[in-house]
Each structure stands twice: as C-alpha cells, then as structure tokens.
C-alpha cells in the first residue's frame, strides 16, 4: 500500500464534512414548519426551504473549490503512476492500491 502512505490521511478531504450542512438545514422539520415570519407575503415554511436550496448550492460549491487542490493532486499522482484516472482513484477501496 505504498500509494496510501504517500497520499496521507483521509483528513485531507476534510472539506467534504461540510456537506452535512445541507442535511442539517432541513433535518429538523418543526424548526421551519411555521408561517411567521413571512417574507413579501410568503410564509416561512416556503421561503426558508427555497433559501436552503441556495445555501446548499453555496456549500457544495465551496467544498468543490476547497477540495479541488486535493483532487487535482490525486489526479497528478495517478498520472505519474502511469494511469490516466483522475480524482478519487488512489484512495480507499473503490480502486484499491494500483501499482
């Protein structure tokens, strides 16, 4: 597992933990199941969830940029190893440790 040792700990992918935020925003239904405060006549239930879509998109975009350095680096390593794969190749079980 020489590849594993070179790529470091899984913590380098820490930004992906932020992806729990979209779930956290909508998980607790009683929090947003209300009419007040309304926004331009739209009850809270509706504008909150529409706003959560935008917040979710911002989180995913943020993670994409924070994560990009790692995935690009992984891609480069994979190339150097003689393979044309990108991204997540050398980590975990999906592809195993390729020589």
């Amino acid at each position: 597992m020489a590849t594993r040792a070179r790529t470091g700990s899984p913590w380098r992918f820490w930004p992906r933990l932020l992806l729990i935020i979209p779930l956290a925003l909508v998980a607790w239904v009683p929090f947003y199941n209300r009419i007040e405060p309304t926004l331009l006549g739209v009850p809270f239930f509706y504008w909150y969830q529409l706003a959560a879509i935008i917040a979710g998109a911002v989180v995913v975009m943020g993670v994409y940029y924070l994560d990009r350095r790692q995935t690009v680096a992984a891609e480069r390593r994979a190339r150097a190893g003689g393979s044309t794969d990108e991204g997540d190749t050398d980590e975990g079980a999906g592809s195993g440790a390729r020589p």
Partner: protein
Amino acid sequence: MSFDVTATIVFVGLFLFVTWVGFVAAHWRKADLDQLHEWGLGGRRFGTIVTWFLLGGDLYTAYTFIAVPALVYGVGAMGFFAVPYTILIYPILFLVFPRLWVIARREGFVTAADYIRFRFNSRALRLRVALTGLIATMPYIALQLVGMEVVIGALGFSTEGFTGHIPLIIAFLILAAFTYTSGLRAPALIAIVKDMLIFITIFAAIVIIPAKLGGYGAIFEAVPKAKLTLSPPAGNSLGNYSAYITLALGSALALFLYPHSMTGILSASSGHVIRRNAAALSAYSFVLGLIALLGYMAIAAGVGENPLHAGGFERYGANFAVPALFLDMFPSWFVGVAFAAVAIGALVPAAIMSIACANLFTRNLYKEYWRPDCSDAEEARVAKIVSLIVKVGAVVFILAIPQSYAIQLQLLGGIWIIQLLPPILLGLFTRGFHAHALLLGWAAGTAVGTYMAATRGFVSSIYPLEVLGLTVPGYAALYSVLVNFLVAMALSPVLDRVWPRREPLDQRSNRR
C-alpha cells in the same frame, strides 16, 4: 375544454423542431454509433454545460412538473417535500459518484451492474442489480406519458378511446426513431431546448401570475390555513414531521441509483464535471420549488371552480391544476410554449430511461447469458432494438392498464431501487462486505419494503413504524433499506467464515 388552435400550432411547431434536433444529434461530435458506449453514453464526452442540461432534463421530468404542483394543490405543504429532497441529492452526488465514474471509465463500464460484477465477482448480485434497475425504470417511463397526455388533453384533444391516444402514439414513435438513430446525443441536445422553454415558462409564470392575482401575499392568503403548514403531530406519533423528512431523504438516496441517472452521470467527461454539476444543478431545484408553488397559484386562481376546466379535472384529477392555470393566465401562443415545454420535458427523460434500460439489458442479460462473445456492433444493434421495445412496452402499458397501476408501480419502484444502495455505496467505500450477505440484505430489504407498501394497499409509501410505543410514520424505502444494511452488516462476518469469498475481479486486475 375547447380546442385551442393557436396553442396547438405553437405546440406542434416546437415539437417538430425538437424532432429535427433529435435526428441532427446523430452528427454532433460524430463518432461510431455502432459502439455501445458511443450510442448509449455519448462517448463519455459531455462537458460541464451539456451534462448540466442532460442531468437537469433527466432528473426533473415532465411528470415532476405536473405531479409536484398537483400534490401541493391537493394536499398542501406535504407536497413541498420535493424541495428538501432536491437539496439532499447534491451532497450525495458530489461524494459518491465521481468515484464510480472513475472506475467505470477505466474499465469501460456502461451500467451499475457491470461495476457490481467487477467489484464482487458475483453474477447473482449483478443479475439482481440489473433486473431491479429494469423493473423500477419501466413504470417511470410510462409515467412520462401521463405528463404528456395531460397537456395534450388540455390543448383540447380528446384523449378518450383509441383515436384519442393517436397524438401520444405519434409523439412516442418520433421519440423512438431519433433515440434509435442518435442514442444519448439526442436527449442531450433536446434537453437544451427543453430547459430554455421550461425556464422561460416558469419565469413568466412567477412574474405574470402573481401580478394578475394581486401578489404573493394574496396567493398565500387564498390558500386554506390547514394546507400552508404540516399539521403538527398529535399523541404518541411523529406524524407528518417524520413522514416529510424521510420522504425527502429516502427519495434523495434512491435517485442516483436509477439506471437513467447513472447513464447521465457516466456520460460526463470527468469527475470534475460531476462535482461542478453537484453545485450547478441546484438551479433546477430552485425552479422546482417555484413550480411547486404553482399549485397554490392554481388554488388562488380558482381553477377548480372554473366550469371550463370541470372536464379536465374529472379526467386527470389534480394533475390538471397546472395546465388549467396556464390556460387561464397565459395568451394562447404562450400556452403552446408552456405545454410544449412539458411534453418535450417528457421526451428527454423517456429517451434517457429507454437508453438506460437498453444498456442494462444488452450488457448484463443478453451479452452475459445468451451471446457472451457478440461483437461490439451486435451489442450496439441489440441495444437500439431494445430501446424501441421498451418504449412500445411503455405505450402499451399506459394504454392497456389503468393509470393508477403505473403510479403504484412507480411507488414500488422507488422502494426496490433503493435496495441497490448497500452494494453500490459499500462497494465504493469499503471491502468489508461479503457478496452473499449483500444479496441476502437485498432480498430482506425488498421483501420488507414491499410488505410495508402492501399494508398501505400500494397507495401510500408512508409506513407507520412502531418504536417503543412511539409511532414514527416514514418512507418505507428508507426503513427497508435500513433492514437491508443491517442484514448485510450482520451476515458478512458470519458468511466470511463459512463461505470463502471469491477474489474480486478488480483485485485480480491489479496484479497484472
């Protein structure tokens, strides 16, 4: 319903335009369409923008555009679960599917079942994955026809009897023809036209309709208070709260396991394309949220009390709410545009779904069990023919069988497809699971989920689970996949002792 000439001319004109686009697509990024990955995955060359349109057209189907606002029109806040659902799908897309893409690209996989065989070296597990995908997708294709039939009916065509079905049959023949010649390139290119039409329609709707009805405040005032929020749970039950969020979470987990989502994902040109789209596709979610609100606009506009629409509601139920709203609010020519958007919105996913079924059948059944050494050209030809058969099957299905069966089967399809989550997800992230344990987990999950739906008479997928005296109504798909997970987890270490694992094919290839 009276026959609307202007709207029909615009509708037919746009339909002919996308037909032309569908055939021209064969020459787009020209390649050898006698290769399955060229016909069925567009050569895996779609960049960020094309993938955005393709996945958008694939996941947000015509049935969604009709059924989600119809649900909001009918039951109110509960119908809005589609919004948290679309929020939750993107983190999942981001985390899981670039990994699958990498492996699929490297090994030349076209379906999820290809991957399962490679990862677990289990033909039995792969067969279950392929069959589940096929069975879950068929009623979904049929439901696209429901969306199309509602707008054809709303144009003033009678959809009764055999002659009434002729417009629908013509539309599907056209669809079958261009899918046959152009493969995945056709829906990819048509999706661009479809989305333009959808965006134009929705932005017009959220500006013009509230202006006519006296603003958003007035619209929400007109909706009965009981519909505006979920009724709080009473007694020893989590009531609507647990139902709402489990529906959202379960649907989100199931979405990308459908073969047509997989086809859309695997046709991307890189993992980055998929990750970028995990953020960018939220634009469609927002539009879907706005579309859901059309249900309330229909209530405020009083479409249900309009005698002009009585026939439509009688025939199509709440699904007629949005077409009726457009008929009341828009000039005829724009009604044509809006209805064309819905009808074309049915063509795109129907094309992708039939291609996905064709890929599954050809790769994982035909080539595996009948013709192991068939040539690439034969493989592609069989796939094209299967895509035709699938569509004919969908038309027959919707004409011969009551529509409510299609809806019930689609509901069961969601429960069945989510059972593929443990093999695919666990396969990507760990090696700790035994193929036969996953197989038994799949069987247990499918049985439990089907039983839960059966106790509700197959009309609802919300199962009132009793935990320590507390009733937790929730989406049967989510409960049954938990059973699936637990069985697989409990049996893996046991089976490892009594039944040696076969060496996974991916390990073997590493030694080369």
